[in-house]
């Protein structure tokens, strides 16, 4: 599968990574190379094989659905680039 610049633009958008228009052809070429490498997987007969969900044959642990933590607002916000009045602050969202 070869990736064109339109697809590269779409993937960058989905990934929320800004890519300059001039850089899209090179990105498309690199993604094509990597995806070409993955094409080898088509040689494998996977009939009747279930996709692996867990590498160890154990069930994910369950826990009681209870509050085990809290009242640490200052810690939660300590690393925020912008926090105001106890909240994370982001640019205004107008839909």
């Amino acid at each position, binding site marked *: 599968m070869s990736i064109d610049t339109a697809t590269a633009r779409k*993937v960058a958008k989905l990934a929320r*990574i800004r890519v300059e228009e001039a850089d899209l052809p090179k990105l498309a070429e*690199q993604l094509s190379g990597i995806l070409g*490498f*993955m094409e080898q*997987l088509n040689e494998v007969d996977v009939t009747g094989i279930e*996709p692996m969900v867990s590498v160890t044959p154990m069930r994910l642990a369950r826990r009681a659905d209870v509050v085990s933590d809290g009242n640490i607002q200052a810690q939660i916000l300590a*690393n*925020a680039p912008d926090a105001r009045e106890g909240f994370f602050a982001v640019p205004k969202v107008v839909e």
Partner: protein
Amino acid sequence: MTNPNQLTIAAARDALRKGELSAVDLTMSCLTAMDAGDDLNAFVHKTPDIALTQARAADVRLKAGGAPDLCGIPLGIKDLFCTKGVASQAASHILAGFKPEYESTVTTKLFDAGAVMLGKLNMDEFAMGSSNETSCYGDVINPWKIDDRKLTPGGSSGGSAAAVAADLCLGATGTDTGGSIRQPAAFTGITGIKPTYGRVSRWGIVAFASSLDQAGPMTKSVRDAAIFLGAMCGYDAKDSTSANIPVPDFEAALTGDIRGKKIGIPKEYRMDGMPAEIEALWQNGIAMMKDAGAVIVDISLPHTKYALPAYYVIAPAEASSNLARYDGVRYGHRAKLAAGDGITEMYEKTRAEGFGPEVQRRIMVGTYVLSAGFYDAYYNRARKVRALIKRDFELVFDAGIDAILTPATPSSAFGLGEMASADPVEMYLNDVFTVTVNLAGLPGVAVPVGLDAKGLPLGLQLIGRPWDEAGLLNHAYVLEQAAGFVAKPAKWW
């Protein structure tokens, strides 16, 4: 005692317990070596104050008697581990300024055992790389040098490998998603083990590909790996994939007796174009195991060739999901916005500025293989192939194989920048012998076995049964004793 920083963990432990050495003196020796090793660019956040506080506390515990093995042992911690109040950036600009409010389970366990943290170690950004050239802190330099070139220590745990090989610390934590402990260990002539998936808690370790990531020790000897691993692992309720099974005494398992054990030699690991030196090293290793009384068995792992392409679907897919959290809202870098920019521009500019090119590439590959219309063709197919790769191993272990011996890397360390113009896929080939182990969730260890004609270290890999790190380390111990690898890099830094 002169230069105690050059001791193994085992030797330092014994000297500390006998009172021949204090934890403070040992730590001072490592801090001096660390500062003198700045040219290697291995340590990126130094914590001498924490180290000395921990060392003083360790001396009190040692004096009282009954201190754990790691009490007073100075270690380096990979930048991927969250350490409370200490920068933990995963070598990425996007986590610039991030100081966790909590301590990872692994470092908590190490500190509870009395270990001393010297500082945080360089790595490839988000552990994505095989040469430590994708770090926001710049390249790590391999202490091994044969001409005027600077060589890679491998990656992603390149800072850990360089620091241990250069005696800046006694051991270091690493993490391994596709070979990131074993390949740098092989490139620097040290020992590195990736445990069975679920053996070591991933809580507080910055996630790359959650179904593949495992932390492990990087050390100067197999015995040190056994001691260090014992202190790192164990059940942790905070990691839902942590295995609730007992942790054996790994050091006690080092009997040196592997008589009658069956060692599998997989024919698919004999790659086209593999250097004659690697083949010769492998044959030497086979002879060593045979001399020790093991039975050598030719085996087949037929889906080996599909491991790398499957890995480069699954790991980026998981990474694209894990790294979605870096959005400039809760921690780390946020881009400066232009007038009129909204939240989407904030995300896009922040992520473009914060992530390096290789990380961006992998996020986008992952986004693509998970996107509507391609999920089945790429992601689900890769997960099916992964199931087949795991089955290959199950079949040989069911047939009575105790461990599998392979080369660790397809070459010795290469020069920094030498792969710069290469296709990304060429760099990925570094992981060809190690990546199967992550896909199958197995334990694997790299042991230094010899030098190549240029004078650079080469390692072999042993792969064990699930949860049999004890048996695996004993096999590695036999290989280590037989190989008698004692070479150290000549100090130039």
